[in-house]
């Protein structure tokens, strides 16, 4: 399958440069050409074959030698009730017989298909890498929340089914979802990014600094904003802001410094009237503080450790045994895991030799 890579602009790059399509990564043609990556999409996209051809800028004539795709084509033709005889495949002819309305249908199908492929692509290794570059260049914008201090956001969907909701922005700093400020994104389908991408991205790049410290360029741009933040944090220092010592570097699989840095004490808005905080007992008092809370001592979120602490001390005998049993089981599992690569290493040469023998 050859494609017009030499052409000035492929369908994919022209699609991605369209207004409102700034969030999209350019899916590599290798990814699209691998049929495995397209599993199940045929039933979701009308005129699938034509749409795929359009995305890949493939001239229809070049598919003739491909038996499998020919079959698909015939199926498609039957569904569409196409009157063309099987031997019609002359590219010029085909172009002429395709009416304008047909083309627009294919165009929209191609967009849908591209979106669905895109959803899969950005969770793949090359795709997520491409999105990382876009993320670091701040292509997706920043969190509108004041206390997130301009944390960069990521486009995500709330549904993996197309046609349900438009694209949203996920802020890792407050773990919340926002509507893109620019209305041009209000027509982009959220399913083209998918529900998985947002979290998977930050798990793939756990060392990505999402805290406000790296945002020096942002704070340099608006000195008032940074100055206001420092003074407001001084204002809010009613509660002791310093977390207790011995904070683990990792909590629940996330680096502590990268774990929702926009939440917690000092980063929760408190409404005040003439400098006095509005009481919780007031009818209009604060009710939503929990949404932006984070324990000062991050170890409070280690539920297993807390459980063990609580119940291990309550009845020592049973739990201690259980604990030791599970502990030994755990250590055994760890030992097994440690052994595994060794074993693999031991087996691998054999396999290699077998393979080599087969090859030879």
């Amino acid at each position, binding site marked *: 399958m050859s494609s017009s890579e030499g052409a000035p602009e492929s369908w994919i790059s022209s699609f991605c440069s369209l207004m409102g399509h700034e969030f999209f990564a350019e899916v590599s043609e290798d990814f699209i050409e691998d049929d495995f990556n397209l599993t199940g999409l045929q039933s979701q996209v009308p005129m699938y074959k034509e749409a795929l051809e359009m995305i890949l800028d493939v001239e229809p004539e070049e598919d003739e030698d491909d038996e499998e795709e020919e079959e698909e084509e015939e199926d498609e033709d039957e569904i569409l009730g196409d009157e063309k005889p099987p031997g019609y495949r002359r590219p010029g002819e085909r172009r002429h017989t395709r009416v304008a309305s047909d083309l627009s249908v294919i165009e929209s199908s191609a967009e849908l298909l591209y979106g669905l492929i895109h959803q899969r692509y950005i969770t793949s290794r090359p795709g997520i890498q491409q999105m990382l570059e876009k993320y670091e260049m701040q292509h997706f914008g920043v969190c509108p*929340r004041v206390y997130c201090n301009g944390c960069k956001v990521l486009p995500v969907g709330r549904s993996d089914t197309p046609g349900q909701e438009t694209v949203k922005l996920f802020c890792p700093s407050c773990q919340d979802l926002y*509507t893109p400020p620019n209305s041009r994104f209000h027509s982009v389908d959220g399913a083209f990014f998918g529900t998985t991408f947002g979290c998977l991205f930050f798990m793939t790049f756990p060392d990505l600094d999402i805290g406000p410290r790296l945002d020096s360029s942002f704070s340099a741009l608006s000195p008032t904003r940074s100055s206001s933040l420092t*003074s407001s944090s001084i204002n809010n220092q009613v509660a002791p802001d310093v977390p207790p010592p011995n904070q683990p570097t990792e909590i629940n699989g996330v680096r502590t410094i990268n774990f929702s840095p926009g939440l917690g004490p000092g980063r929760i*808005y408190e409404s005040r009237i003439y400098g006095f905080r509005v009481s919780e007992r007031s009818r*209009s008092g604060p009710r*939503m503080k929990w949404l932006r809370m984070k324990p000062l001592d991050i170890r409070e*979120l280690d539920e297993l450790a807390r459980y063990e602490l609580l119940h291990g001390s309550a009845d020592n005998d049973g739990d201690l045994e259980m604990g030791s049993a599970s502990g030994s089981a755990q250590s055994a599992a760890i030992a097994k895991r440690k052994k595994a690569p060794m074993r693999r290493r031991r087996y691998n040469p054999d396999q290699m030799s077998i393979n080599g023998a087969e090859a030879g």
Partner: protein
Amino acid sequence: MEDFNSETDSDYTSYWRDWFISSRGNEYFCEIDEDYLTDRFNLTGLNTEVAYYQYALDLVTDVFDLDADDDLREQIEKSARHLYGLVHARYIVTTRGLAKMVEKYKRGDFGKCPRVMCEGHPLLPMGQHDVPNQSTVRLYCPKCEDIYNPKSSRHASIDGAYFGTSFHSMLFQVYPTLLPEKSIRRYEPRIFGFKVHASAALARWQDQFREDMKASLREAGVEAKFAEDASEDEELEDDDDEPLETKEEKVAGDAASGRMDLGN
């Protein structure tokens, strides 16, 4: 002047203020009454804050008749805008000012909450400081009780002190019926349909905090209601809160159609 949909109640048109509130980027401001501006008591202390104070005040009240060159005029113009902003912060916490701002709030003049779970709830402008030149204007969402940066850059340069720290809280003290129903809905990050442990653990911890808050408030005799648990508490409320109900209605009448349509 009809084009500007002037909110003034004085008989003669206020050219400068009409121009000011209708010019691009000043959509958050409401028009200050003539008599509020001319009452010297309301301007206490501002003469030290604003350069060319008297000229600026004259300009704002349309009695400016100084033959100034362009440079000076520009200076005075700048001062006038600053003065207007500072008086505005004082004006919008008065009864009349609040009423005007409530109208703007209901129209959604200040924008909608960007948070998806707030479903486009209207915002209110506010400042993090009452002293000028400290921070720019922020937008407060009464539904999630958080503050956001305005999405448009033309609003991002407005001084937060022109709205002040107290205004939005004051508004809901005066119009408690406008308080939106709070929601416990939140975004749950998922990977291939599975919740993510770190976020879920934090969510559980936050939920525990919320339940603790509700319990302590109930102990104090205050009911903290959320949209999700409204159905079960509804009957209880209706049974024993008869006097409260009538009071609410009275306030609602004051607020002039206090119910908001959350849909827009």
